[in-house]
């Protein structure tokens, strides 16, 4: 499934808070390749969210580089096609990275359909009817075709998260970032969201997923990263990580969560 094309190259990524007192990320180096389903695990406070949020510059890194589609997006100025230095258009890059949050972050004042069509209409200048058609199609695929006119408050947590996923897909991103997408859900709704993510993975979507769902990591992930204290302590295939953990911190972590 995975080809050898690098999509995101992260080198020595650092993010410090409080003048370096907190090292949320302390030198992370990793490559995300097209088609990867990269699962990030680790104890609370280990920097998983910070890592994910740095990838689309929700957090500005303190150091290091992130090369996405051949451009170092941590730099203020980047060379354009002609080699001239121009201001980095971060919105352009964010459009190519979908993000799904723990708390869904649907827009409460808009219907499901409006939630989904806003960005394609305003950013991609897609005609409204075309955007709505596409939204209804995607909603149908996640079993919510009849809820287009509803407001977010009228949906269950699992339904909200499925909407959040297809809302991000409307922009046809090259990679999807998930930050604990099932952690805020009642247990009976976790499955329906993981199913959608699994389907997405099978279609070849590149995904970076922070999750505590070890079953998902094993079954769907093709690479697993273990983070602790802002460092990437171990990475490998699900079998490497779950069956043959090397680092003592990983062994300790797994003994608690499995």
């Amino acid at each position, binding site marked *: 499934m995975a080809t050898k094309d690098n999509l995101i190259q992260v080198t020595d990524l650092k993010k410090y808070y409080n003048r370096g007192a907190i090292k949320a990320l302390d030198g992370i180096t990793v490559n995300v390749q097209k088609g990867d389903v990269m699962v990030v695990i680790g104890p609370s406070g280990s920097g998983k969210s910070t890592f994910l949020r740095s990838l689309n510059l*929700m957090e500005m890194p303190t*150091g290091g580089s992130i090369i996405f589609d051949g451009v170092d997006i941590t730099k203020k100025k980047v060379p354009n096609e002609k080699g001239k230095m121009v201001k980095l258009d971060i919105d352009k890059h*964010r459009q190519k990275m979908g993000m799904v*949050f723990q708390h869904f972050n649907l*827009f409460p004042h808009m219907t499901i359909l409006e939630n989904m069509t*806003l960005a394609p209409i305003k*950013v991609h200048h897609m005609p409204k009817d075309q955007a709505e058609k596409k939204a209804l199609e995607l909603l149908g695929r996640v079993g919510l075709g009849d809820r287009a006119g509803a*407001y*977010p408050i009228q949906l269950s947590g699992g339904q909200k998260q499925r909407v959040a996923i297809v809302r*991000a897909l409307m922009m046809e991103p090259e990679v999807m970032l998930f930050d604990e997408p099932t952690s805020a859900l009642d247990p009976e709704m976790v499955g329906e969201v993981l199913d959608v993510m699994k389907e997405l993975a099978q279609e070849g979507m590149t995904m970076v997923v922070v999750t505590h769902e070890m079953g998902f990591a094993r079954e769907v992930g093709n690479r697993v990263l273990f983070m602790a204290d802002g460092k990437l302590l171990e990475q490998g295939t699900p079998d490497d990580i779950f069956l043959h953990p090397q680092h003592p911190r990983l062994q300790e972590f797994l003994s608690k969560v499995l």
Partner: protein
Amino acid sequence: MSVSAAGFAKTFQYADMFKEGMLCTVYLSFFTVILGFLLALVLAVMRLSNFQPLRFLAMTPDGHLREEGFLAAVGRFNPISFIATVYVEVVRATPMLVQLFIVYQVVFSKNVIDLPSVTVLGFLKLNRFLPGVVALALNSGAYLSEIIRAGIQSVDGGQTEASRSLGLTQGQTMLYIILPQAIKNILPAIGNEFVTIIKESAITYTIGVQDLMSAVKAAQAGTFLVLEPLLVVAAMYFCLTFPTSKVIAYFERRMRRGDQR
């Protein structure tokens, strides 16, 4: 001092003046609310902007942002936000009456902005009415901007993140995501401010705007009655402010429907 029916009867001989005064107060408040609100939006956005022209001074040679020290502070300096903050603080720390006279006697004086002596909207003297509106709007804009700023900050940060992650710009995020939710949160406070504007507009009487207060003065002078005209005008202010707050409360309830959490 006593109140008598005869006193009210005399006062009502000035009904036309009270009517014009009431209309004047309505116009004053209406234009003040609109101008003040626009000013407040601009001020709030200025204060929340992240325009940092000296940011390059805070950059390390390898292109990252300094976290501490004098240069980091200079780099964070936002002149747009600074100007708006100074404006808001000055307006809030000086008397409305002083502001009104500065606008009327200085800004709209013969040698700065010389307004022609014409009447507008039927009976309003432009060279009194306009300075009144401008002064009230400049004042309420400062207060409203604080309310709006608080409202913007009250919107969950996840909303901005979701919007920006979809590729919407900062401006689009403000317009389509943050402001609609902020306005809903602060509608009660805005309603309060609108009611305050109606009441405070009485102060423009001091620069000769023919609002409700000037009708009181005329009635008092003509009838030698003190209390009755004041009671009438108090009742009229009440008739303006009470429905206003009720209407705003109605909209607030309506907007709460379909609310999250």
